[in-house]
């Protein structure tokens, strides 16, 4: 069978079931592609091109339907968790509705994480500790800078999400995103400088070198601020991973979408899987097992209310977790290095001197 015969045959078959073919073609290929094919139909027909024979047939077929300009089907994004470098749904299968902060309109369904998701996230974070804390500070700085680069490229998306989440105008939201990118860069610069600032050689009364070096705490659970869904989130997360810890982040309960999208940025910016794990859902529900978890080394209670924070602090005492209590914070102010040193342990080594 020659190519042109094939075209004719395919064409006639398709014509007999015209409506069927049109219906089939659209959802299968996506409406945009079908429309594009329609545009090309004339040229393809004129040239009697032998390539893509069946496409030509289908395209010829969709010509009539295209006159009606079918409206494009919306493609909604399924927001998912970010755990261990993958994007799972909640183990529980639950979701909750996220709404626009001003109009109250539905934006998306976010996963409603369970305590098992928290447990899985801790396992992933623990697995990542060795590699990430063992990476050179310089390398961590490069990776964090890469995150800033990736964020810059998706600034529009984040500006939209932040505007919807926090009821800001587009220009205000864009400024928040810029500030967040700058904050990543700022913390990226600190990775290989913090040791010089908080570590050092200590003068001792004896024939010893005495050196103090800061080391990462380990797995840190981070309750992201509830009010600042993006700049606040970046301001609490970046210092945790800049110092070589790995993080399990509980996103803002009512505005988790920027955090879940941040997971996508981290997945494409050389941050090893498991270094950052993002959970969405009810803060109190997820935070309780994290605070009690024996394999979590620190917890940042920034996003917890006063009563919840007290409860979590008591639970965290069992394995002597580092706890950072919540306080009113201005996210646009100079952050200082307080959040970096909160997740560092000082190791002091005595070394004999002389011959």
């Amino acid at each position, binding site marked *: 069978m020659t190519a042109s015969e094939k075209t004719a045959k395919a064409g006639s078959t398709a014509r007999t079931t015209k409506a069927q073919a049109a219906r089939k073609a659209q959802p299968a290929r996506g409406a945009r592609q079908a429309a594009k094919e329609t545009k090309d139909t004339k040229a393809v027909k004129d040239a009697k091109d032998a390539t893509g024979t069946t496409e030509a047939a289908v395209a010829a077929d969709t010509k009539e339907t295209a006159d009606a300009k079918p409206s494009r089907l919306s493609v909604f994004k399924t927001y998912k968790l970010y755990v261990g470098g993958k994007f799972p749904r909640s183990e529980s299968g639950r979701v909750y509705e996220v709404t626009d902060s001003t109009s109250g309109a539905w934006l998306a369904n976010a996963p409603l994480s369970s305590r098992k998701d928290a447990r899985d996230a*801790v396992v992933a974070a*623990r697995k990542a500790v060795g590699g990430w804390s063992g990476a050179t500070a310089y390398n961590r700085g490069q990776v964090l800078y890469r995150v800033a680069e990736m964020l810059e490229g998706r600034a529009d998306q984040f500006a939209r999400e932040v505007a919807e989440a926090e009821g800001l105008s587009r220009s205000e939201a864009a400024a928040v995103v810029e500030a967040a990118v700058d904050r990543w860069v700022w913390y990226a610069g600190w990775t290989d400088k913090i040791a010089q600032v908080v570590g050092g050689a200590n003068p001792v009364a004896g024939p010893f070198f005495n050196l103090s070096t800061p080391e990462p705490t380990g797995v840190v659970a981070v309750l992201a601020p509830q009010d600042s869904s993006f700049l606040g989130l970046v301001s609490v997360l970046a210092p945790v991973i800049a110092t070589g810890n790995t993080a399990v982040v509980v996103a803002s309960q009512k505005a988790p979408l920027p955090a879940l999208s941040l997971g996508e940025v981290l997945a494409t910016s050389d941050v090893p899987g498991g270094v950052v794990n993002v959970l969405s859902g009810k803060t109190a529900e997820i935070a309780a097992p994290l605070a*009690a*978890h*024996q*394999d*979590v080394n620190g917890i940042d209670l920034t996003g917890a209310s006063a009563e919840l924070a007290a409860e979590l602090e008591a639970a965290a005492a*069992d394995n002597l977790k580092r706890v950072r209590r919540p306080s009113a914070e201005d996210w646009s102010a100079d952050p200082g290095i307080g959040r970096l040193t909160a997740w560092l342990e000082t190791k002091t080594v005595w070394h004999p001197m002389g011959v």
Partner: protein
Amino acid sequence: MSSVVPAYAPDAAGRLSGLADVTASDSALRRFLHGLPGVDAVGLEARAAGLGTRSIKTTAKAYAIDLAISMIDLTTLEGADTPGKVRSLCAKGVLPDPTDRTTPRVAAICVYPDMVAVAKEALGDSGIHVASVATAFPAGRAAMDVKLADTRAAVAAGADEIDMVIDRGAFLSGRYMEVFEEIRTVKAACARGDGSAAHLKVIFENGELSTYDNIRRCSWLAMLAGADFIKTSTGKVAVNATPANTLLMLEAVRDFRDTVGVQVGVKPAGGIRTTKDAVKYLVLVNETAGDDWLSPDWFRFGASSLLNDLLMQRQKLRTGRYSGPDYVTVD
């Protein structure tokens, strides 16, 4: 069949003689093994996967965890094993979780033959068995007298259980009688001077048997030859115990007991690392062979890292807090 006897009972041999005609000659044995019904691989895997979806929670989970701990053959089979490592493993077997004395003991400590004496001494009168691999484990590629010397040395050093490997080369090339005789001879070598005998576990190395049909044939072959336990694998190859091949072996021991009235145990080994996996195997046992097999006498896990995960889950059930690797031993 009026009653059931364990494979190590004195009258088990008498029961087996009921099937003496199938083991009378090489050709009769081949005819019998090839006459076993073929395995529906898709059905088997679907059944194993289906049984793996059962949800075992709260008190049932607590029971399953304790049962699984009591079924573990805590294993160290490394070239780098030292007496110190074996002793610490024994200490762990006796008292798996020092923070909770209600934790059950493991069933046995599984070591290489030269470590049997060390393990025996470390375990003392704790009641935990010492299992020893033998017959040129894991390859099984040695002369018969070497394999027997290996076995006798382990028994003489005090091993309560012998884990032998079969000659997969002979089995795969169809020399069934040779494998049958090998198992019989090793079983004879397990006898002690006082008339008792070490229990014999026969390792098939399922990963090397290629097909489910071969695993079914091998199961029957080993049981006919007098195995007390049939064991999936050495843990030294890529494919070890899987739910499907363990299910197949459980079906074999069930059918064998129905046929001749002799009960044989099953031991999956290798690749079982989490509590979830272990509980899935227990479901398989209960649903396939029945609860007669739900005891350390009839079902064992060959594992090393599984115990830590079981202990962490046990701590979680007890305290309500997720535990971590900082609270169990590094082994």
